[in-house]
């Protein structure tokens, strides 16, 4: 690892983290806004903990993200393997195009059409409809993340497994899936990103008091976003970062013990 690439990595990481540190910095501001820093306070953190409605929203947001990403990863993984196994050229490119429709469609269209869809099917708006909608728009991104890994793996392995008499089930579970692990992981992470960021789709398909952080933040925009939101984001950010570090140390030890997974 030479200095050039090391400094490149550092610069990019600073670029990516700078806005977040900026938000975190102002979460301690007595001034009440993100303009001038007047003094240090922990008030916003205190009021987040005391604010039951806000805590509910945070828990909802995390729940929706995890559940929808989990389901989207399974569906997307199956979809990607299915697309990979199709041999007819036109069928494959048609399906792949359909796959990407939701990626190109602006959120307003997705939100409005899902609202109509849920109304037709009589699905009550609330946590279920929001999770369904998030699964819907996360599946294509999972597929796009997994497909390159599939194409890249050595297809001879699959053929060899077949020749050795492995059942189709075994080929998929013992050969294919372990080979594309990074793709699956990437798909899951991107599904999380899509879910946590979404505002417009959630807005249209939510109801019965169910709300996520993004919806709350956008609704606040007219009156100015309170620093409580900065405080929440800082907490979420720190927690996620801590979990990643723990993961890093745990996997590091595993490697040292020679137990690579």
């Amino acid at each position, binding site marked *: 690892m030479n200095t050039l690439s090391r400094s490149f990595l550092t610069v990019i990481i600073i670029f990516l983290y700078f806005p977040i540190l900026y938000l975190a910095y102002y979460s301690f501001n007595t*001034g*009440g*806004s*993100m*303009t001038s820093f007047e003094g240090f306070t922990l008030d916003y953190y205190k009021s987040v903990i005391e604010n*039951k*409605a806000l*805590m*509910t929203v945070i*828990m*909802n947001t*995390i*729940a*929706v*993200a*995890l*559940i929808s*990403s*989990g*389901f989207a*990863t*399974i569906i997307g*993984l199956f979809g990607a393997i299915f697309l990979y196994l199709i041999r007819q050229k036109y069928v494959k490119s048609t399906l792949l195009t359909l796959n990407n429709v939701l990626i190109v469609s602006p959120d307003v269209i997705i939100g*409005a059409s899902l*609202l*109509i869809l849920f*109304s037709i099917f009589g699905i009550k*708006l609330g*946590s279920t409809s929001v999770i369904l909608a998030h699964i819907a728009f996360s599946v294509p991104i999972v597929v796009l993340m997994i497909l390159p890994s599939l194409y890249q793996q050595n297809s001879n392995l699959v053929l060899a497994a077949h020749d050795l008499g492995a059942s189709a089930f075994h080929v998929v*579970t*013992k050969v294919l*899936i*372990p080979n594309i*692990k990074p793709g*699956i*992981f990437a798909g*899951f992470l991107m599904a999380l990103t899509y879910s946590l960021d979404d505002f417009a789709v959630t*807005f*249209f398909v*939510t*109801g*019965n*008091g169910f*709300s996520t952080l993004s*919806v*709350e933040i*956008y*609704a*606040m*925009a*007219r*009156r*100015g976003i*309170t620093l409580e939101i900065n405080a929440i984001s800082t907490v979420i950010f720190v927690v996620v970062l801590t979990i990643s570090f723990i993961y890093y140390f745990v996997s590091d030890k595993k490697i040292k013990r020679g137990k690579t*997974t």
Partner: protein
Amino acid sequence: MRFLITLIASSLLVGGLFLFGTKLLNNTSSSETDVLFVYNWGEYIDPELIKQFTEETGIRVVYETFDSNEAMLVKIKQKQRYDVVFPSEYTVEKMKKDNLLLPIDPDKIPNIKNIDERFLGLSFDPGNEYSLPYFWGTVGILYNPETTTGMDFSTWDSVWDESLLNDVLLLDGARETIGFVLNSEGHSLNSTNKEELDQAKQKLEKLSPNVRGIVGDEIASMMKENEAKVAVVWSGMAMDIMYENEDLIYTIPQEGTNLWFDTMAIPSSAKNIDGAHQFINFLLDKNVALQNTDWVGYATPNQAAFKELDEEVKNAKEFYPDKETMEKLEVYRDLGPEWTEYYNELLLEFKMSLD
């Protein structure tokens, strides 16, 4: 494979736990009648008042927020249940036409007596059959006297001043932007006269060197940071900004401007109609309205509450204008789909001509 199962199972499990957690946090098993679905703009009510309402009446409030009239409309049209909504006046007119509002029974709202008569029976809902005013305001000019030395922005035309090159922020709303240009020419901001509108279009084009951006809520953070010298804004937004940047001044140009209302109404999808009346009546109570006005900071149409406000607030002429100014204000009328689209097209073309 084990990796995959662990990943999926743990995310579903943790997610499920969180979802279960929120159910516990808000454990409720109440019947239909003692729940009230309220749909309002974000940060537009003192949350303490919702608690107080529940304590007084036993009605649990399910509170949701929206960020634009139009987005709220989409959900009402799809028959999503809300018992009380807070549409702006032009949306009230539109909803009335589309039969999306239920009539308000004045007998159930004795606190109507608290509302200033000037704000009742206005053109968008004569007789207040469907809506009652919640907060009101104007569209005006917010400027920084330090960077715009010598200018007092008493006329709309001052926005065209050459010294404001690339320093004017406009609202991303066709009615607001085309409206003030029409006002500057002495026309009605509800004009459906092609000639007047073409004239406005040409005048707007002359403004383009001065336009920094055409935005929405971001005007607030831009003006707080002195990023631009001048902005055409709603009075409510101006109040929020001036609260944090005390150097700024809000003014209503003498040619007149728009008078807007956010109202309380009962949508056609409502189920708890009795509760909705109780809620509206509660918000019109003198003490409740006073507390809410303190918290929200916008101008209240509640005469009884207004009298109790601090002298300083009461005397702020830019937010509670005198009779003479009030006479020049005009409420937006719903222009119907064709003219609305024409206004929007004018603004879109203007945006595309900017660079």
